[in-house]
C-alpha cells in the first residue's frame, strides 16, 4: 500500500503503521452496517427489481428494453418503490432545505452569487435576506445600492437552500436569525458525500465554548461561541432585542484556549475526512476527546500515528458493540 493520501493530506506511514491501518480497514470492511457487496453496481448494469412497471426510477437509473439499468456507478438504494443509485463520489447535490456554508463570489443586481461547491454558482436574492434592523419592508433602490454593506465579496455566510429550479439553478435564503455572515472562526472543507443530512446542523459545544456549523455541501464552520465573546454594549444598543445582529465584519479577539479548541476540532475533522469516515458531531467530539486524553499535541493530530489510532478505535468500536453509525 502506498502512502495514504486523501484529499490533499499526505501521510508518511511506517511499515508497522501501514499494517495496523490495513488491519483496521479489513475489520471495518467486515463490520456490520456496511453495504453488502451485491448492492454495488456499475454503469449499464441491470438493477434487480420485482416489477419494473411499478417501480419509481430515481436518480442514476434509466430504462431500456423493460430493464432497469444504472447510469452511475455506486450503491443501489431502495426506499419503498423508489430505486436510486447513489454514487460513491460526486459533487454536492443541492436539495431544498439544506443548510450550507458559502462564500460570496459576486455582488450583482438584486442578488449575490455564492460558491457552495455546487455545479454552478448559486444565487442569494436581495429579497431573501434579513435587512438590518429586522424590519420587513419592500426592497428599494437604496437597498440595492447598499448591498455591499450587508455582504461583500469573499464573505462567508450560512444559508439554507430555498429552491432548486428545473434548469439547475439554486436559490438560497437567510431568512432566520441563525443564518447570516460568519466571523471569528475557521472553515474546513471536506468531501460533501461525507456529510449526511441531519435534523440539526448548528451545534454548540459548551465544554469547548465553540460553535460548529456542518454544511451539507462539505464546508464546515467552526467558530467561537457567541456567548463567550466579550459583549459589545454598543451593538446591543443598536440592534435592540428583535432585530438582526449588526453585520460586523471585524473579527473580535478570542482567548487562546478557545482558539486551541477550534484548531483541535478542525484537525479532528480533517483526520476523519482523510480516513473517509462520515462526519457527525458525535464522531468529531469523540476524536477531539481522544486527542485530549492521549495527550496528542494539535500539530501531531495530522500525523500518521494519530490517523492510525483513530482508524483502530473505530474498527474496535464497530466490531465490539455491533455499533452502527
Amino acid at each position: 500500500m502506498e502512502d495514504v493520501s486523501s484529499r490533499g493530506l499526505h501521510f508518511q506511514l511506517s511499515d508497522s503503521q501501514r499494517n495496523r491501518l490495513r488491519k483496521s480497514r479489513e475489520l471495518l470492511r467486515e463490520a456490520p452496517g456496511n453495504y453488502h457487496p451485491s448492492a454495488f453496481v456499475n454503469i449499464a448494469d441491470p438493477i434487480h427489481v420485482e416489477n419494473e412497471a411499478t417501480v419509481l426510477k430515481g436518480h442514476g437509473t434509466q430504462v431500456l428494453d423493460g430493464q432497469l439499468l444504472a447510469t452511475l456507478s455506486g450503491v443501489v438504494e431502495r426506499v419503498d418503490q423508489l430505486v436510486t443509485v447513489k454514487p460513491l463520489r460526486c459533487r454536492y447535490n443541492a436539495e431544498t432545505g439544506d443548510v450550507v456554508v458559502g462564500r460570496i463570489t459576486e455582488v450583482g443586481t438584486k442578488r449575490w452569487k455564492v460558491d457552495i461547491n455546487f455545479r454552478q454558482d448559486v444565487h442569494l436574492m436581495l429579497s431573501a435576506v434579513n435587512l438590518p434592523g429586522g424590519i420587513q419592508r419592500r426592497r428599494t433602490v437604496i437597498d440595492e445600492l447598499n448591498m455591499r454593506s450587508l455582504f461583500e465579496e469573499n464573505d462567508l455566510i450560512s444559508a439554507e437552500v430555498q429552491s432548486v429550479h428545473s434548469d439547475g439553478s439554486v436559490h438560497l435564503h437567510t431568512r432566520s436569525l441563525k443564518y447570516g455572515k460568519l466571523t471569528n472562526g475557521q472553515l474546513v472543507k471536506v468531501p460533501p458525500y461525507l456529510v449526511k443530512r441531519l435534523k440539526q446542523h448548528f451545534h454548540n459545544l459548551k465544554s469547548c465554548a465553540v460553535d460548529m456549523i456542518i454544511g451539507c455541501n462539505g464546508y464546515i464552520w467552526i467558530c467561537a461561541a457567541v456567548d463567550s465573546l466579550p459583549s459589545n454594549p454598543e451593538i446591543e444598543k443598536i440592534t435592540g432585542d428583535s432585530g438582526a445582529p449588526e453585520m460586523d465584519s471585524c473579527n473580535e479577539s478570542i482567548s487562546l484556549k478557545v482558539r486551541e479548541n477550534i484548531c483541535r476540532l478542525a484537525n479532528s475533522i480533517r483526520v476523519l475526512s482523510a480516513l473517509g469516515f462520515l462526519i457527525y458531531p458525535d464522531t468529531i467530539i469523540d476524536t477531539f476527546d481522544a486527542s485530549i486524553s492521549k495527550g496528542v499535541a494539535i500539530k501531531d493530530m495530522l500525523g500518521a500515528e494519530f490517523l492510525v489510532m483513530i482508524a483502530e478505535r473505530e474498527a474496535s468500536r464497530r466490531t465490539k458493540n455491533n455499533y452502527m453509525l
Partner: protein
Amino acid sequence: MIELLKQKKKRTNGIKHCEIGWQSKLLSNSTYYRPCESQVLRLDTTIFETSRGTRMVHDRPDGRNPNQLRPLVCARGLLHRADGSARWSQDNTIVIAAVYGPKAISGRRENPARAVLEVIWKPKMGMAGPSEREAEFILKRTLEYIVLTAMHPNTAISVIIQVVSDDGGALSCAMNAACSALVDAGIPLKGLIAAVTCAVDKDGVIYLDPINKEEKEFHGHACLVFPGKPMSSFAPAGLALDSEPIERGIVTSVTKGILSAEDYLNCLERSRAASVKIAEFARSSLEKAQRGVELVVAS
C-alpha cells in the same frame, strides 16, 4: 514476382518445407532471381492463411503475436483536486485523464438544454497543434455519445487529457482513460466504451495494439471505439445475430493510411473481440476501486 510465388504457397507445417519448396520453384524458373535478404523467409516467422491467401506475419519488436494486446494498467482517483481522474497505461503508452464538472459556465457557450462537453488534449512536449485539435474533436464527439448531458443543463464538463508517454495507440488509450475518469467523477453515463487500435500491413495482416514503430511502418491503422457491454444502452432493441443479441454498433472509427474495404472489415471483427477484453478489464478495475474507495460508507 516474389509476391506471386508467395500467394501460391500452400499452408505447410514446418519452415523447412517452405524453404525448399520455394527454392525449387525458383530453380525451375528460367530467369534466375536471387531474393535479397529482407525477403527471404526467416526462420522465426510463420505462415498462415487468410481469405486472401497465405500471408507472412512479421515478428513484432516486442515479441507479441498479432492478436495480443499490451498489458493494461488502470489507476483511478489520482488527482485529488479534480472531480474524477484516471491513468490508463498500455505498456509504454500512458495517458492521464482528469474530469472537472459539471461546473458553472457563462456566456455564449452555455446551453440551456444540456451540458457542454469540452476536451483539452495536452501533448507530452511542445504546444498543442492541429493534430491535437483533431484528437480533441474526436474525443468530444465520442464522449458526448455516452454522457447523459441533458441531466445537467447550463453546465460544462471539462475533460483534460495529458499524454505522459506515447508509444502508439495514444488516442484509444485516451478514450479509455477519459471513460474511467468520467465514471470516477460520478457523472451519469449511458454505458462504458472500449477503444482499440489496430494496424494493417500491406499483406492484409492485422496487428492489434501497435507500437509507434509498427504504426509508422504499416500501411494503415485504425482506432475503433466500441460500446462496453454486449447488451448496452446504445443499440435499439432487436439487433440479433443467430438469435443471440450482440452489439453490432460502433461508436467511433478513425482510420489513417491505406486500408482496403476488406481490411477494414477484418479490423472491425478483430477489434470488437479485443474490445470485449478491454471492457471486462475496465469493469473489474472499477469494481475493485469501488470496494476500496472509501473506508466506510455505512448507511
